[in-house]
């Protein structure tokens, strides 16, 4: 297990390195000059050049990337071009809201998706199955922006059950987490349904039934535990999906997380902020996958390492 984890941590570092290289190359190749965007329209060419020099943008790719990596290993993510503030501090001020949003979304998608999937599997072909799958389809396909505004209008503005937006306690968290979670819940319902149906058709289930285990016992004690395997991996992968979704959801609900930070940075080609958020997100995703891998053996003894 330790060897496995060490290898996976090594892989993760490599993944982060590759992610940083790809992002840096993409931003470097972008046909837009950050110095000009910082300088603003009224700046003379001399001013733009002096800003380019101050930011080190007049150096070649290798020098710029090398310098970036050098700072990175010392834990320095640089300074925002636009805000002229440390990127580490900026990310630090936005981590907690994004993590809260992700946790809330994961909790809601599991709470909604898993029971729906189980219900669908157990009522296969009948109307509850069909209703659950239609919900899953709509949840997966609904555009997040539309979903967010609809939820705000109906639940917050019309029914006044929640605040209109902003950051705060659970009442503020619920709608953005639900927006993010509904799509995921659809996926979880589908995966849970097919996984459970697959498990229920296995020989050991038939054996359990033959031994006289009750229908409820078969599902709870034997089938669910095995059917949950793909779900664990999905949660790990979900963090990656969320990083894309949070940009929209955070923007609509005024949630002060990383999604909004990076969106604003992309608009003005604020390279240090874009790089910082990408690297941080990549670290979060690899960590999520690492945790999923570490958790799997606890649930399924067959995947244990000695």
């Amino acid at each position: 297990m330790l060897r496995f984890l060490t290898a996976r941590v090594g892989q993760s570092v490599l993944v982060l390195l590759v992610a940083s290289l790809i992002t840096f190359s993409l931003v470097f190749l972008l046909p837009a000059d950050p110095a000009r965007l910082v300088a603003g329209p009224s700046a003379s060419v001399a001013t733009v050049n002096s800003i380019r020099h101050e930011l080190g943008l007049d150096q070649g790719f290798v020098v710029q990337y090398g310098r970036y990596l050098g700072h990175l290993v010392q834990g320095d993510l640089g300074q925002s071009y636009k805000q002229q503030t440390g990127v580490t501090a900026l990310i630090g001020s936005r981590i907690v809201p994004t993590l809260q949003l992700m946790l809330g979304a994961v909790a809601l998608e599991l709470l909604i998706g898993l029971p729906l999937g189980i219900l669908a599997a157990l009522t296969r072909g009948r109307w509850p199955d069909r209703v659950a799958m239609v919900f899953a389809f709509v949840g997966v396909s609904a555009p997040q922006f539309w979903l967010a505004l609809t939820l705000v209008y109906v639940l917050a503005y019309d029914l006044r059950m929640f605040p209109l937006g902003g950051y705060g306690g659970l009442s503020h968290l619920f709608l953005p987490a639900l927006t993010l979670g509904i799509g995921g819940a659809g996926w979880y319902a589908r995966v849970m349904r097919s996984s459970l149906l697959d498990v229920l058709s296995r020989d050991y289930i038939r054996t359990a039934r033959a031994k006289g285990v009750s229908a409820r016992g078969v599902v709870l004690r034997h089938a669910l535990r095995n059917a949950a395997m793909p779900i664990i991996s999905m949660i790990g992968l979900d963090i990656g999906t969320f990083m894309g979704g949070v940009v929209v959801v955070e923007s609509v609900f005024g949630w002060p997380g990383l999604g909004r930070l990076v969106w604003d940075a992309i608009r003005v080609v604020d390279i240090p902020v874009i790089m910082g958020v990408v690297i941080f997100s990549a670290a979060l995703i690899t960590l999520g996958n690492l945790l999923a891998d570490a958790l799997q053996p606890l649930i399924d003894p067959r995947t244990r390492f000695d």
Partner: protein
Amino acid sequence: MKLTAAFLSTTLVLGLAHAQQRGGEMTVSYKDDVTTLDPAIGYDWQNWPMEKMVFDGLLDYTPGTTTLVPRLAAKLPDVSADGRSYTFTLRSGVKFHNGRGLTASDVKYTLERVIDPKTKSPGQSFFLGIAGAQAFADGKAKEVTGIKVLSPTRVRITLSAPNAAFLNIMAMNFAFIVPREAVAAAKGDFGHKPVGTGPFTMTAWVSGQSLTFKRNPAYFLPALPYLDGVTVKVGTDPSVAYLGLQRGEVDLLGDGIPPAQFLQAKNDPQLKDNIISKTQVNTSYLSINTQMNELKDVRVRQAINHAVDKTKIIRIINGRGEVARGVLPPLMPGYDKTAKGYDYSPDKAKALLKAAGLASGFSTTLYTNSTDPNPRIAQSIQQDLAQVGIKVEIKSQAQGTVIEAAGSRNTAPLVWSGGMAWTQDFPDPSDFYGPILSCGSAVPGGWNWSWYCDKALDAQAAKADAMTRPAQRAARLKMYSAIFKTLNDQAVWVPIFHEVRYMMHSDRLQGTEAEFVDPIHLIGYERLWVKK
């Protein structure tokens, strides 16, 4: 002059004092985060009104107008006979939020800070006309020789050449006075820890959520501000903010009325008193690269001007624009009220193309920012030009990419300026010539996207800028009118519309057009008040 200054200053303080009530707080909402409150760095319409809450400049404008009045200066400066030296006397008793009194050294420090390349100020270029500024910027001098502290309350600024717009430049946010020790104490983060002399102090900034401003009890203009506090909520989607205003959680929509709700709100008689609109001092335009292929021919450029239906474009933006007849917007001094511009006439366009030997048309490319409604506007232009035989390929790209292409020679034949419309930095026509239409700006990385360079016009502009005496003002504006007439005849742009800005406020928040849609500061927080 003294009497006028005193009168204007008093007007500034008293304003419409009979109506306002003192006290109370307001909330304004914005979609985007505020990047910085450092006046040397912030350079957009969202930053500027907030910077104005915390800082003051030596000069300001009478609210709602383009008339210069003293602010931190005790009076308008004494100008030397050659129009190059300006001596400012500071108002006495002004204190920074940290309690220290304002001195002339702060003025010198502030301007040198903007000019210093290390500050990376987008305003640097405006101040390079001060004698010795270029040498200081190039690292060849330790100070700007043209800024002399004469006494703790007097400072003289000398220019390398006379510039009639210099006082306007001194009224810009970049010249708002900052205290050296507070900048140093903020350790590179003055933008988040601003200290000025302004009517409000910033008391809290929660990243990505809100900024809180409280009244400065020791403000040197005792009547101001009327409000006890202002909360700026950031990150709120405009549609959600609109709902928040209906519910009384928001008092002012910083981003204006969201497009989806615009017609409904505008046509609602109950909301009539809550909506204030004014044409902005800006111009959205289609630039025509005068150095590229068929577009080198003035007749082709004139044909394009006749071919574009501006009223259709204004319909696309829900009527939030006024048809442009030239480069200058109506509120800009020097605007020619008699100018008719090019009328919409596909027939005239076809005739001009025929005269240019292009009766069967030609193909070209139009660059546009990819944010709605700009691609739709580009399509409208594409359809109009197709009517006269000009086949247009649209390149819809990120704003930074469009700026890069437009600022590269022989790359972008046509550029729709949507999202980057030219808005005044200060109310002087030179701001609509030098940075965007002069030879100096027709360089790689410059903002002259027409790549039009007429040395005679440059000389005329330089001559006009040297006319610094008030008595020469009318003649100077006439010269600028002539410059813009030439540019219009040369059809270097298709000036399309001047934006009409609509602001919507709650029932309790009170103010006039001068406070809600000020041509210079956009929002005059210090003069807004709430009904109790």
